[in-house]
């Protein structure tokens, strides 16, 4: 059962209705039952891994939380539990990759081995990180271990988050399971509107752009300008896809009385790569910062060490996204961007001073946003490509613009006719406007809710109709999954 399935559209209202009826103190049981059912409907075999992760971290947490002088034992339990959980990811997600790499180094042909046939359980990269963050928080003493195993299991498996996050911290979520917020009419409306926005981004924009992008990336002989456009479309596709998912997840949690952290905050309006990572996939970025970068020393141990730490964090981030060199390169590119940014900071500051640039002027802000966007766009080429050589090929093609593709009809030969192309561009336009408003602290959803009833109804009905009519779904399209689900 995916978020974009009829099953989910039936499942969620039932869950919400019963959740409204059940006494608050028992809601977590209901949410756990439904979360288990949700996951089982997607991946029965994978549920074994989920249970293993829950049980190991739950009992390890209890043991770590016991009073007394037991540093050695705690360390052993902690490391063992980490090994088990990270080991599960490594084996299930990366064994095939490691095997291919080793075979490549020794010059052997990779055969059809068990490793190459392993399919990682759905959401493993997300729920294991949640479990690990809980374990570390307990170990550090930042969090009391959860005694109630159902509540803890719900924390790891909470169905709006289990497939692709946000990777919420236990400290934020567990108290909400104990004392869930009352779900009133306004909360229902707000959560539903956020879900609608998510469905719009996913079905109307992301999957529409995906048709064009897939056609260009899987074809050959495409002109430079169209290829360049495809790379830009992918930049928006992945944002709308993952951002859309996150909005659906956050909205679904909200109408269940649970507040979930924001995962995106107008990332493409960032004025630097560092800012981009504070606004893109916030739950993952903060995980890496809190549990890898800072423990490695962060920026406290000198400049060189800081750069090494950045490289480590982004290499891990790349690898986390997938078992392929393209992802590692993507991560490293972001690390390099940041290091170059730090190295060139004096030069940039000097230039600003020399040319008397007003840093807060619109033109300078726009310049920085565009440069950051283009750098991010460049890196996404590696993220999207099936291989490094394909990514290089795409970039080379972009170097030969061939502007006549705009008028020769080639633009519309990649799965999107004029109407669909126009709709895709309108979708991007709406996204940009909403993000600019969000950047300025204006939440469009709240603005709509503050209007008269006829306007609210009009917007909501129009949104549903646009999603249903213009959304990419139904036979002929594989819109059944989200890009980040594979990670």
């Amino acid at each position, binding site marked *: 059962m995916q978020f974009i399935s009829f099953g989910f559209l039936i499942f969620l209202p039932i869950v919400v209705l019963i959740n409204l009826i059940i006494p608050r103190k028992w809601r977590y049981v209901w949410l756990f039952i439904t979360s288990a059912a949700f996951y089982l409907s997607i991946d029965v075999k994978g549920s074994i891994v989920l249970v293993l992760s829950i049980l190991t971290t739950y009992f390890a947490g209890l043991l770590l939380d016991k009073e007394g002088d037991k540093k050695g034992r705690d360390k052993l339990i902690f490391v063992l539990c980490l090994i088990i959980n990270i080991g599960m990811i490594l084996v299930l997600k990366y064994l095939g990759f490691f095997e291919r790499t080793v075979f490549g180094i020794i010059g052997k042909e990779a055969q059809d081995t068990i490793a190459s046939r392993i399919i990682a359980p759905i959401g493993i990269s997300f729920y294991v990180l949640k479990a690990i963050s809980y374990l570390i928080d307990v170990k550090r003493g930042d969090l009391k271990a959860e005694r109630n195993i159902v509540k803890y299991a719900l924390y790891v498996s909470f169905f709006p988050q289990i497939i692709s996050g946000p990777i919420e911290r236990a400290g934020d979520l567990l108290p909400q399971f104990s004392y869930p917020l009352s779900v009133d009419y306004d909360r229902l409306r707000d959560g539903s509107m956020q879900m609608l926005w998510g469905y719009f981004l996913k079905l109307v924009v992301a999957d529409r752009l995906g048709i064009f992008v897939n056609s260009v990336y899987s074809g050959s002989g495409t002109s430079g300008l169209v290829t360049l456009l495809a790379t830009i479309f992918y930049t928006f596709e992945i944002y709308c896809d993952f951002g859309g998912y996150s909005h659906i997840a956050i909205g679904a949690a909200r109408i269940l009385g649970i507040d979930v952290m924001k995962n995106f905050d107008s990332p493409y309006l960032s004025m630097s790569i560092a800012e981009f990572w504070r606004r893109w996939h916030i739950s993952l970025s903060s995980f890496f910062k809190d549990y890898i970068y800072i423990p490695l020393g962060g920026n406290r141990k000198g400049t060189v060490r800081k750069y090494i730490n950045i490289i480590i964090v982004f290499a891990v981030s790349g690898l986390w996204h997938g078992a392929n060199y393209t992802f590692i390169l993507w991560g490293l590119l972001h690390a390099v961007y940041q290091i170059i940014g730090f190295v060139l900071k004096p030069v940039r500051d000097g230039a600003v001073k020399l040319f008397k640039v007003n840093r807060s002027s619109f033109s300078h802000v726009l310049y920085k946003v565009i440069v950051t966007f283009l750098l991010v766009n460049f890196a996404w080429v590696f993220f999207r490509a099936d291989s490094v050589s394909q990514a290089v090929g795409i970039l080379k093609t972009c170097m030969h613009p061939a502007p006549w593709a705009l008028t020769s009809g080639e633009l519309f030969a990649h799965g999107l006719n004029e109407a669909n192309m126009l709709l895709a561009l309108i979708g991007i336009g709406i996204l940009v406007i909403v993000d600019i408003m969000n950047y300025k602290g204006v939440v469009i959803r709240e603005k709509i809710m503050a209007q008269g009833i006829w306007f609210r109804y009009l917007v909501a009905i129009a949104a549903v109709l646009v999603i249903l*009519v213009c959304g990419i779904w139904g*036979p002929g399209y594989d819109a059944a999954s989200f890009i980040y689900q594979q990670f």
Partner: protein
Amino acid sequence: MKTKILNFCKAAVFFLLLAVCILAATVVVRRKESSYKYADFFDKAKNDQIDVLFMGSSHVINAVNPATLYRNYGITAYNMGGHGSVMQATYWELIEALDYCKPKWVVVDAYMLEKDYQYLDVMEENADPGDINTSVEQLHLNMDAWPLGRLKIAAVNDLIKDPDKRNQFLFDFIVYHDRWSELDENDYRALTGNADRNQLFGAEMRYDVEKTPVTYPDPQEGALLSGHTVGQEYLRKIIDECQRDGIGVVVTYLPFCADTDDKIAANSAGAVAGEYGVPYINMLDKDIIDIRTDLNDTGHLNASGAEKVSRFLGQWLTDNADLADHRGDASYSDWQNKADAYYGSISDMAASEDDLYTELELLSLNEVSGIVYFNQGSGAFHDDTLRKMVSNIAGTDTIYQANGPYILINDVGSGKTYEAFDDGFLGGVPTAMGNLIYQPVEARFRFLYAEENEEMNYLYDDEHADFDIQVITYDPASGEVLTHRYYRSYGNRYRTD
């Protein structure tokens, strides 16, 4: 509590409005082919005006023209044929139709009786995915118009195996929502019930002429299908259903270029009909159409063939079915109007058509008068199809004796035809254009004029001196010339330039 009730009411209003809008969107984006075909069926069934239902595949769609049946026999019939309809699809089409009307007779064509698969989305083992796709798409044309209900669910469950595909029939918005970028005015007119509709009571006429019809060997005398097929099972169900409801049923096998297996299936249809004691008309064995002139393609009849088959069936029903003649009944005026409109359109098409075969096909329907002239040395004298078409219009074999030139005057108003060939001439034959005189003079020059206007030579003008074929159409009543078209022959192809 008051706030809760108010919120509940507001939510209810919202969902009601949303449901109405989604329903409207569903109507607008739905493909209109199915509702186009059946819109008149629902209207006529509501008024209990349908006496005969014609069931079957596209063979039926193209072969049976209810306008002909009404115009010539006063029979009110609806053509329910579906593109690619195998017998089980035809069965469910009938079951759906019987939910809306109770005809006096059902005529079911048994084409594809030999098909031995149940599900249209599976078909035979190793079926081509393209064929499966076409089969499912064609079923949409048959099914989309029927509202969601118990019968439709049963039909879809019986015809489609894949649960996802079943849902696409029950909730066709799943399939059609992405038509949003191709919507036109007609799609929006569906909201007010004014979308385009079939004007031939479900039939579709085709106007091409198959120039290379094929004939196949006959099977052994009395050869039948070797085993029991799904097609046979559903033909039995159709007959059962009709007999249970007291509806007269007749099984047909409409004419086309049937291969040996089709002929065996036709024999088997007769055997099934015989089991139930219902009449069976195997038109493959009857001299109703001429495959050289009456086929649109090897599988389907053209308008000329449909006229012949419809008249045959109309006569059969008149003789055997005890049906009322509704002509002259004011409440059936729409039937008359549509029949008149169809035959009126034949004249218009004949006037606008620039394909020689089609023009002659339309002339053969005798709705517009015409003069056909082949000059000496014309390629038309070596074209069997063309000569046969002329022969059909003339009702004689004179054309076969001609070496050139040749003229045929078909005066529909008087019901007479006049021919002359080689050195022969016509002297003052009475037509709506006047008393026409035809006189060949030399290879590129001949006279055709009315005694009342000797200055007007219809068969010669300098600009078209080297065109070897001329076709003139004129109004059967007033004699006004409607079109005068010149053709040049290039082998068996004819061009107007």
